[in-house]
């Protein structure tokens, strides 16, 4: 062995100690390292491992250092056994709120991390402009069939309008799109007035400034779904030329997710001036109501009557886009309302307190108890909101009808069972300390219920109350009752 290998072995020994120290609880680590460094010095000196050492002595010192791992593991085990116990937290209001807070954090983080949910939030964040309506012929049964002619729009635009300050038209047709050399795809292209997104109040993402686009090439706004499916959500697609049918079109932006909910199930909107849109075929009309027009709306609907040159009457219905395109928040509030209506069917909502004596907790304690229930419900609702959004949109980023149904069901289920749990949990919490009552004891016999009381007794581990729950509700003992424990019970709860 060469004298040069001494420092190398020394470095190995110190490295082993360093690794072993990672097992030691952090609080004791520094002192542990100090002791083992000192002991190592003695071990090396005792084995004569300084300068001219042999492999045998180095092996012994190495063996000594390996023992440090056993020592470190032992300290870790001892530290684990002596860790502070959270017994006082068990069953407490704090533990309950911490658990709910943890669930909320998880669901919120999931909504931040799941790419689909994040995109849905970004895209559905686009708000529809108040007063934006979709106009359909009054004879139309639903939005699936377009009923409007562009000539009608042109006629309206020529006359002075008091109730409407903007019209936009679009007509959907299947067209082939060349995505690359020999790569064709058939899309549902909407030939659209260039002001469609302005009328609706949406701003497409990554929008190319007008001065950078050539007027002779129409702009193409991709739907969010198409952008993701065909281009892998690559923002660099904006500005590129695509061949739509037989003419080129430049991608000028990505439509917000809400735009996908316009009738027609459009893959892309080809922006053109109204004069360039042919008069053949029917389409959809979007309009923006003025303040006067909005005052005529009732329940999201407005009736429009128009007369042509021959004084023939034409009737139309304008339906608010806000009503048509409920966002996740609207779905959530609707489902929460349904939950409140359904809750009495699955749980008794009464929180009336019955006591064996006239003793009642102070109003502060009662307010704290009520506040605790309010916090539980608020947390459950937030959990329901974020979890439902996670469930609805983790697989698809756009605001799809399927997503709406999934969110609706998820919010309803989570809120219903969550609130049921919150009410049942509240009834089993000591009115004094809000700790859950425990140690259930069956008292009496149901067969003797006319002679004596029978049911279950639960006790607050803080020594404040005893809860009596009747086995069979009777006319004289129908609801649970609290018994407030006096000082004579203290001996039971002494440490």
């Amino acid at each position, binding site marked *: 062995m060469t004298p040069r290998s001494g420092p190398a072995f020394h470095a190995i020994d110190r490295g082993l100690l360093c690794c072993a120290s990672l097992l030691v609880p952090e609080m004791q680590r520094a002192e542990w390292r100090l002791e083992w460094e*000192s*002991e190592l010095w003695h071990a090396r*000196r005792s084995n004569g491992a300084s300068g001219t050492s042999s492999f045998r002595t180095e092996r012994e010192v190495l*063996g000594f250092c*390996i023992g*440090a791992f*056993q*020592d470190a593991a*032992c300290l870790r085990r*001892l530290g684990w056994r002596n860790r502070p116990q959270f017994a006082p937290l068990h069953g407490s209001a704090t533990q309950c709120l911490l658990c709910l807070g943890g669930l909320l954090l998880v669901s919120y983080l999931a909504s931040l991390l799941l790419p689909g949910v994040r995109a849905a939030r970004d895209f559905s964040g686009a708000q529809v402009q108040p007063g934006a309506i979709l106009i359909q012929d009054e004879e139309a049964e639903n939005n699936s069939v377009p009923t409007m002619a562009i000539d009608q729009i042109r006629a309206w635009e020529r006359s002075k309008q008091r109730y409407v300050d903007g019209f936009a038209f679009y007509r959907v047709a299947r067209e082939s799109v060349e995505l690359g050399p020999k790569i064709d795809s058939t899309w549902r292209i909407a030939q659209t007035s260039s002001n469609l997104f302005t009328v609706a109040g949406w701003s497409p993402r990554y929008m190319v400034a007008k001065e950078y686009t050539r007027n002779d090439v129409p702009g193409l706004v991709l739907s969010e779904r198409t952008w993701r499916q065909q281009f892998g959500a690559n923002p660099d697609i904006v500005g590129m030329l695509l061949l739509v049918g037989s003419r080129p079109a430049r991608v000028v932006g990505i439509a917000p997710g809400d735009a996908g909910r316009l009738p027609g199930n459009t893959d892309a909107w080809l922006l053109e001036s109204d004069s360039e849109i042919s008069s053949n075929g029917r389409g959809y009309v979007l309009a923006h109501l003025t303040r006067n027009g909005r005052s005529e709306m009732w329940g999201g609907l407005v009736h429009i009557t128009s007369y042509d040159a021959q004084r023939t009457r034409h009737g139309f219905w304008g339906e608010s886009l806000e009503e048509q395109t409920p966002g996740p928040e609207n779905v959530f509030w609707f489902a929460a309302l349904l939950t409140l209506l359904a809750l009495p069917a699955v749980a008794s909502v009464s929180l009336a307190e019955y006591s064996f004596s006239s003793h009642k907790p102070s109003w502060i304690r009662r307010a704290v108890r009520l506040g605790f229930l309010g916090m539980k419900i608020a947390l459950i609702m937030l959990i329901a909101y974020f979890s439902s959004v996670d469930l609805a949109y983790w697989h698809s980023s756009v605001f799809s009808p399927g997503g709406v149904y999934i969110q609706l069901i998820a919010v309803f289920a989570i809120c219903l069972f969550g609130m049921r749990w919150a009410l049942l949990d509240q009834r089993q919490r000591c009115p004094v300390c809000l700790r859950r009552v425990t140690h259930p004891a069956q008292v009496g016999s149901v067969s003797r219920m006319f002679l004596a009381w029978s049911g279950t007794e639960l006790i607050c581990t803080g020594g404040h109350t005893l809860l009596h729950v009747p086995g069979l509700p009777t006319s004289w003992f129908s609801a649970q009752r609290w018994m407030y424990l006096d000082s004579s019970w203290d001996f039971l709860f002494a440490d």
Partner: protein
Amino acid sequence: MVSSAKLSHTAAMILQAIDAGLIYGFSIMEMTGLPSGTVYPAMRRLERDKLICSRWERQSIADAEQRPPRKYYKLTSAGAEALQASRQRYPLLERMISAVEEKSL
């Protein structure tokens, strides 16, 4: 605290070694012949059970002797009682350690 009856032979050996005077980890290894992976964990448990206690040597003493400071262990009164009981349980204990001491001298 653990009862003395529960002390293992190893723990009793370490107590006996510590009883010889102010002592640090490596010297216990030398006296008992036990490996480091046995001695140090046993000392942790004895310290947890308050049978031994430890203190660091003053830096000035270590500096004077040109070595790192040592962590010395000594028996507590409970440890002394436990050792007494262990000596009855393991009669050869006292002789074994003293023999080692003589040998090392």
